[in-house]
């Protein structure tokens, strides 16, 4: 790759890592088809690449049981267009090809798995980890690198079994100072995405109408990190901070927390399954109110 003079590097050079939700179980029963969605997304990517000559875009597909890198704008400089295909900008020819290959592979994988009775969630933890690895490589590439951020386009519901892995990725992103933006296009609320954006300082938005998705994307998510300091972006009023318990992967509001490793359990255990520390007696009786808990030994 050609070295770039440093004076070309302005404040708003950005690296956008897009996590695309390709969960077939989600897309199979939506009013908006996947192709319409894809067209919005591809146009958005084009717009981002057009904002600055040095912008970079990486697309990672989040499948049902696997993830993979689909597109890296810094690798496809040589634009050997596919002649014969009409309508599609040559830039994204390879993207679509790789996407198709990925979906085929994903299908193969799911055939091998036994009946997997879990919620139809996509592998968000996997794609977050891959994005963070790529960003870490960019950080180590030298002095001049674009400012990375992650955009998560998700529609599938949260898989509570991925809670630990997702939280670990979120905290790593916080450490790296990489904001995670999230655009949730599904029906229910996604606690993971809200927490991710809140903790890392990104933007979370759930657009209601999908036919205006392109407008949402360009208005909110195309702003680079430098511009965000003087542009007002929509902020959610509250954040859903629910966690899932470590034993059953249920989403819980109140539970028990191990004081050594902070793992969350929904019921009383004798031993922590993560760190092995032994818990003491539970001080709570069956139906106790707040005042009961505070009362000391009864007077004799």
């Amino acid at each position, binding site marked *: 790759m050609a070295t770039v003079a440093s004076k070309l590097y302005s404040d708003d050079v950005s690296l956008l890592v897009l996590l695309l939700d*390709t969960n*077939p*179980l989600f*897309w*199979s029963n939506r009013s908006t*088809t*996947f*192709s*319409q969605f*894809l*067209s*919005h997304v*591809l*146009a958005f990517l084009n717009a981002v690449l057009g904002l600055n000559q040095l912008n970079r875009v990486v697309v990672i597909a989040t499948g*049902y049981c696997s993830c993979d890198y689909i597109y890296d704008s810094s690798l496809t400089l040589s634009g050997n267009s596919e002649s014969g*295909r*009409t*309508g*599609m*900008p040559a830039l994204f020819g390879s993207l*679509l090809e790789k*996407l*198709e290959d990925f*979906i*085929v592979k*994903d*299908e193969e994988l799911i055939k091998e798995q036994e*009946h997997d*009775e*879990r*919620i139809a969630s996509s592998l968000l933890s996997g794609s977050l980890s891959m994005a963070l690895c790529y960003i870490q490589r960019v950080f180590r590439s030298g002095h001049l690198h674009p400012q990375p951020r992650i955009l998560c386009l998700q529609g599938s519901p949260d898989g*509570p*079994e991925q809670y*630990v*892995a997702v939280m670990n990725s979120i905290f790593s992103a916080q450490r790296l100072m990489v904001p995670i933006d999230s655009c949730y296009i599904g029906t229910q609320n996604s606690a993971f995405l809200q927490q991710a954006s809140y903790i890392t300082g990104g933007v979370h938005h759930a*657009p*209601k*109408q999908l*036919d*205006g998705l392109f*407008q*949402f994307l360009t*208005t909110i998510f195309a702003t680079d990190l430098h511009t965000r300091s003087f542009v*007002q*972006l*929509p*902020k959610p*009023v509250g954040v859903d901070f629910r966690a899932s318990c*470590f*034993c*059953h*992967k249920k989403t819980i509001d109140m539970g028990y927390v191990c004081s050594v490793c902070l793992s969350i359990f929904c019921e009383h255990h004798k031993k922590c*399954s993560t760190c092995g520390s032994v818990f003491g007696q539970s001080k709570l009786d069956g139906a106790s109110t*707040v*005042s009961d808990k*505070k*009362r*000391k030994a*009864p*007077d004799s």
Partner: protein
Amino acid sequence: MSDWQVKYKSTVKDRGARGILKLREGMLLFVPNDPNSDSKLKVLTPNIKSQKYTKEGSNKPPWLNLTNKQARSHIFEFENYQDMHACRALITKALAKCEEEPNKPAAVLTSAEQLSIADLELRFKVLRENSELQRLHKEFVETKVLTEDEFWATRKKLLGKDSIRKSKQQVGLKSMMVSGIKPSTDGRTNRVTFNLTSEIIFQIFAEKPAVRQAFINYVPSKMTEKDFWTKYFRAEYLYSTKNTAVAAAEAAEDEELAVFLKPDEILAQEARQKIRRVDPTLDMEADQGDDYTHLMDHGIQRDGTMDVVEPQNGQFRRSLLQDLNRHAAVVLEGRNIDVDSEDTRSVAEALARVKQVSKADGETTKDANQERLARMSRVAEMEDLQAPQNFPLAPLSIKDPRDYFESQQGNVVNEPRGAGTLKRNVHEAYGSLKESILEIRTKGLSDPLIKPEVAFEVFRSLTQTISTAKNIIGKNPRESFLDRLPKSTRDEVLHHWTSIQELLKHFWSSYPITTTYLHTKAGKLKDAMSNSYSQLEAMKESVQSELRHQLSLLVRPMQQALDAAFQHYDADLQRRAAKSARGSAGEANGHWNYNKGVIIV
């Protein structure tokens, strides 16, 4: 007790009013003869600071001048000197008596209140520095909800810090040598004067254990302390004159002096013991060099001159090296006793005690000796000559990290789907997805990508969202709601928070209630808390309507805590009532009975 006819003047120039001076228990009364005059006087004896009187030999009339603590003086002119002297004697006696007494009641006072002037000053200082604390103090202690002691009970750290800081640092010993203190010589009368302070005494005792021992033995049985020190300094003087012949002569005469002139036997013994205790394999605690009393030195005296050794008087000499080493050793050891008293004997005894303790610790008992020998033999062995040792091994258990990750998958229970239907659904889904991709590849991006009305709608809704969010949250996401309140409300909210915490702390600490004191305390605290509660309510109503919701959210945890406290208080009260009703059912105690309609006779 006695009455005298006197004339009372307030100043010297005053003509004086005639009357009777009565000395009663604890006070002085002057009653003028003329009932209309207003020079009646009553002076309490403790108030009298001093008394002056005119001498008999002078031409002045017999006057007694009493000055009281407020610097007012009362002059009484007596009829004759005898009366005056009698009165003066009685007053002196009374003054002496009442000087003893304040010591006793003062002792009682301090033990009851535990407050000295220094403490009070410290408290005021802390209050002055911390305005928050001062406000709390004003609110609770002055309205008698909490007492001073309770208020400060949890804040001992604030009060104690200063005093602890002062006494933490230990003062070491001076590095100047004692023998470097030059006496003042008086050339005229040929006297040499040494100045002794307790610091110097301490250092002498620390450096020369023989002197200490001699002190304990001789004083006060054989000689007084002054004599002891005189002898000691005579010995020092003799040393400094370097006249060993004279020293030997005097030592032969005076047995006690000889003690000071001999080399320090105790020290030598200690050094020998230390060397014996040394573990040749490892311990470098002491070695031959520690025995500095017997060091071969270069014969250099303190002022640098060389000296010829006279063998028979060799013991009456000390060299610079010995002195320096001993002094350095003592300074490095530091101050190991805390005795601060002026009494020389107690200092000597304390030092002796310490030395005995350390000696006892160091004494090697038979077991300790055995252990030492065993240790020496262990350390001295050579590894390659030993037989191979088979220690029992504990098996290594390294957990597979995959267990952690896989256990996180857990047993997730969903509604069970038939395997067949699942597979079919999945295949269909994948199929439709692939079709979509094919479609977009052939058709390309849709044109127009987005309808203008839709775009406009999006813009409008976004603008609305952002502006409403700005109203609710504020321009700066990091800004808290507290900053948006008017300053007075904000201060009030914060103050309520701290005061409610303080009240709750004392309230919960007074349970379980065992004494009446705690009972009244809980009652008072409960009243103060209900007061706070109503103030919170009033504050909520007084604030602007758009802030009200957020404010009530902010205030809610405080109110919940107060509610819990009230609940507990009422429940406890009920329980007590029920219990006392039950308890007194068997007694003939009618008025404790809460059961209606049952009268115990």
